[in-house]
């Protein structure tokens, strides 16, 4: 990944969520992580650790309080990545 643009982050997230979600729903940015994709708290926290390693950033789990959808999560990662570079 070259510049970790928002769209690249979103694409990577969608790919990863496809593997860990228990549903057959196609992953789109507006889907709710918990209600629609059945991502429970443990799965989400483990995904955050993977994301931290992929982008070499720190994502405090308390920042997830405002994250509802796939695009919310992509925005959070993009913001942290931009601020850290």
């Amino acid at each position, binding site marked *: 990944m070259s510049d970790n643009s928002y769209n690249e982050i979103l694409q990577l997230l969608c790919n990863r969520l496809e593997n860990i979600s228990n549903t057959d729903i196609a992953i789109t940015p507006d889907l709710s992580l918990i209600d629609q994709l059945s991502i429970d*708290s*443990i799965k989400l*926290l483990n995904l955050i650790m993977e994301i*931290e*390693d992929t982008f*070499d950033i*720190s994502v405090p789990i*308390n*920042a997830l309080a405002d994250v509802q959808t796939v695009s919310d999560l992509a925005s959070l990662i993009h913001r942290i990545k931009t601020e850290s570079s």
Partner: protein
Amino acid sequence: MNLLDKLDAAATARKALLPDGVGAFGIPIEEIYSSTEARIGERRILLLGTNNYLGLSFAPECLQAAHEAIDKEGTGTTGSRMANGSYLGHRALEQEFADFYQCHASIVFTTGYQANLGTISGLVGPGDVVLIDSDSHASIYDGCTLSGADIIRFRHNDATDLEKRLRRLGERAQNTLIITEGIYSMLGDQAPLADIVDIKKQYNSILLLDEAHSLGVLGDTGQGLVEKTGLINEVDFITGTFSKSLCSIGGFCVSNHPQLDQLRYISHPYIFTASPSPSTIASTRAALKLLRNGKHLRRQLWNNAEQLYTKLSKTGYQLGPEPGPIIAATVNSPQGALALWNGLLEHNIYVNLILPPAAPENKSLVRCSINAAHTPEQISYVGQVFAKLYNSILE
């Protein structure tokens, strides 16, 4: 979805895991016979899910101390220590914990949960960082949330992963509180404390160790993992609970940092709650003496633990990485775990059932906690029943 609908959704999710009538959580216990046996329904049940590691819940010394305290000082303190004052027993127990750990001071909290909540939220705040093991107990997660600090998780018992995350923090690492546990409550494994201490020193961070499940269990005098590893002077804060090896309720924090005392004035879980009752403090003090001198109890506990771990391991159960007083069999499905738990209860054995998402890796656990007062015959019987059920349920 309104507030009550959310609770209905939670009830539906629970019923999907546990059908009506299966009382795996909060099982009704009609009568307690001893530290190892109770009556559930009409049956005499062997208790292997109580965290009563040293078997002191009916120790005559503890019973007598509690009786005397209740007669002398009443049933409760009716308020916080800040408002209602500190009884002689509160102050004596704090001195005894400080002596036990050869530390500057200690603070007693009303529960073990509050010991973590109060210590963590007193030590860090907004702008600081807490780095916690991913398998941390809920009291650690909740204490971190209450603090407002940034919460970062490192992979369970992985010191290399911890180091990587500290490195990423740059200068913030020196305002970071690292939290680990002596023995982890789910699989019974121990923290790699020496490696974590090395990293904490390298980054000039602060280290808090929760000895909830290791107090009384590890070390010559039962201090916990700090004593087993000889690293007591390298750990900044130690917390623990009275509700396991000490068989009462309450918690503590000990430290050589003189700033510990300030927690009494800033920590809400310490300030805004009633202090422990006199009988609780008295039985805890008596149990602490027994714990310190309880080398024989620890020997018996470890003999029992090793006997059962070996038997279950040979049977084919997937267990935690090392023997210890917590022995948890990992089962791939909640249904399999429930069948095993039910099978054990039908054979008059009570253990803990842990279903997702409470267990690590989204697995289910059937967890035993061993007691020094279990007889070799009882442990042998439990091993035989586990073996029988493995063949009939899990194979």
